[in-house]
């Protein structure tokens, strides 16, 4: 028996709030039972539309955090000198030093060099990830702990599990809803994906951010397609963006009109293509142009 290859489409945007999640949710409905991976782990919203029933819940332990034992601290200040992340809080007169857990990057330098060996280094709980059932297919999603590190590693975990699920159960497509930006969690969302769809908007920011995110896609050698959401807000800018996209080596996947029904769908916990929305037709066309299983 030949193994079916699982395709992985990642939806990214550079700029936030361009409509990634609304479009991905619609794709989840249009695709034939895909696996959905919500990789925007620090502001995950897909579950608000796909209302998943959680089947498995896993703690995400990742990294360590320095903790100074008050009783053993000799207040020498070595940790303060060595910490490059500004995470050591010097105590006042007669008080021990302490670590700001929000600033600590878990490098362990203070732990290793404390002359009194007064610093513990417990593992930290950085969040949780879940496997759920939705009306469109299984979904892997996560929640990064409050002010926790390691969002990139949590994204990698979500993607790995989504892919495993797809392979084990014969799904041919994983839809990855990516985070905004171009940094660590975006890189973790897109490396090795089969295709990227960049959702942008016809604004100066959308144009600027698209250019950077397309460079990132090229850097990692991911074929990219671009779709301009709310295109009719500024038709001239839409044209400019599409020219830019083609010059940057991307394909045009289509335009989606400005549509207030997108918010109405969100309020009803529906994907745009599940309600009678004018832009649903545009989203269907974009989906078809991507030529995915």
């Amino acid at each position: 028996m030949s193994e079916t290859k699982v395709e992985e489409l990642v939806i990214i945007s550079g700029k936030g709030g361009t409509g990634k999640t609304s479009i991905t949710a619609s794709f989840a409905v249009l695709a034939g039972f895909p696996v959905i991976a919500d990789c925007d782990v620090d502001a995950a919203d897909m579950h608000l539309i796909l209302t998943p029933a959680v089947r498995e819940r896993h703690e995400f332990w990742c990294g360590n955090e320095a903790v100074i034992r008050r009783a053993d601290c000799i207040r020498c200040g070595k940790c303060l000198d060595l910490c490059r992340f500004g995470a050591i809080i010097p105590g006042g007169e007669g008080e021990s030093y302490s670590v700001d857990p929000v600033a600590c990057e878990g490098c362990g330098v203070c732990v290793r060099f404390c002359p009194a060996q007064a610093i513990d280094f417990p593992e930290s709980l950085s969040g949780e990830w879940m496997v759920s059932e939705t009306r469109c297919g299984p979904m892997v999603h996560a929640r990064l702990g409050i002010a926790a590190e390691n969002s990139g590693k949590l994204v990698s975990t979500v993607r790995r599990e989504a892919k495993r699920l797809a392979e084990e159960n014969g799904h041919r497509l994983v839809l990855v809803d990516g985070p905004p930006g171009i940094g660590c969690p975006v890189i973790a969302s897109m490396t090795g994906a089969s295709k990227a769809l960049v959702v942008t908007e016809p604004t100066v920011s959308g144009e600027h951010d698209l250019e950077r995110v397309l460079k990132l896609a090229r850097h990692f050698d991911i074929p990219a397609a671009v779709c301009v959401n709310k295109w009719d807000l500024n038709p001239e800018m839409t044209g400019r963006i599409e020219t830019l996209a083609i010059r940057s080596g991307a394909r045009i996947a289509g335009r989606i009109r400005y549509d207030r029904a997108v918010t109405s769908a969100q309020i009803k916990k529906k994907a745009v293509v599940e309600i009678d929305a004018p832009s649903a037709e545009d989203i269907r066309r974009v989906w078809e142009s991507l030529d995915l299983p």
Partner: protein
Amino acid sequence: MIISVASGKGGTGKTTVSVNLARTIGAGVQLLDCDVEEPNAHLFLKGREIGSDIVTIPIPTVDESLCDGCGECGRLCRYHAIVSFGSAPLVFPDLCHGCGGCALVCPRGAIRETGKRIGVVETRDADGITLIQGRLDIGVAMAPPLIRAVKSRLNREKTAILDAPPGTSCPVIATVRGSDFVVLVTEPTPFGLHDLGLAIEMIREIAVPFGVVVNRMGAGDDRVHRFCRDEGVPILLEIPDDRRIAEAYSRGELMVDALPDYTDHFATLMWNIRDFRNSGGK
């Protein structure tokens, strides 16, 4: 006073609020664009560049003639950025956080640190507003060191507005830490509400007073307002869902320039921030 403008959800209007607030305060104010992955403030406050500095993080370089392959560096490194297999170690610069531990721990002094470029900090002047922005190089994963470099240029004697990246993770925390006040921008939609909740949890963790700006008022429902009322969170400003605002934004125009009837909104916002902070915040 240092005011950070943040949001859980992207695209709610952080940059809109930051640039219009900066213009309303006027000459002398500093605007720090800490969304170093996608800096946009300069598209609205054009001005001229007055300086640009390359930012680096220290990464290890191994002198193989001194290394005896003891592997201490690899055992210390928590990020797998330096790995030793009984010979001179391999360095993976993209994974390095620049903690300096490997150079400190090496018993033979075989590791020294050299700078690896991660981006630039540019300073611009726009009619007396000092815009300081970070721009992360493409392919670089870690934004926080660049955000810290942007913030190190802040003049504490003057008012500063910090435009944060979206989300609630490390780059946002690196931005808002040390602020006197955080403005959380949201929209009255289910996504806006959900991500506002996450952002509030994060801000409470770092204990900075905050208030909310509701953008696109009228576009969704009233759940954000009900939530703020129940949580005792002040709403500092409401910006209506006005297609003219979206169109002006699309062209890179400031709201207070393109639609002067909104100038009062941002004066009121500043007044509310001062008032709320002076009354002790929460």
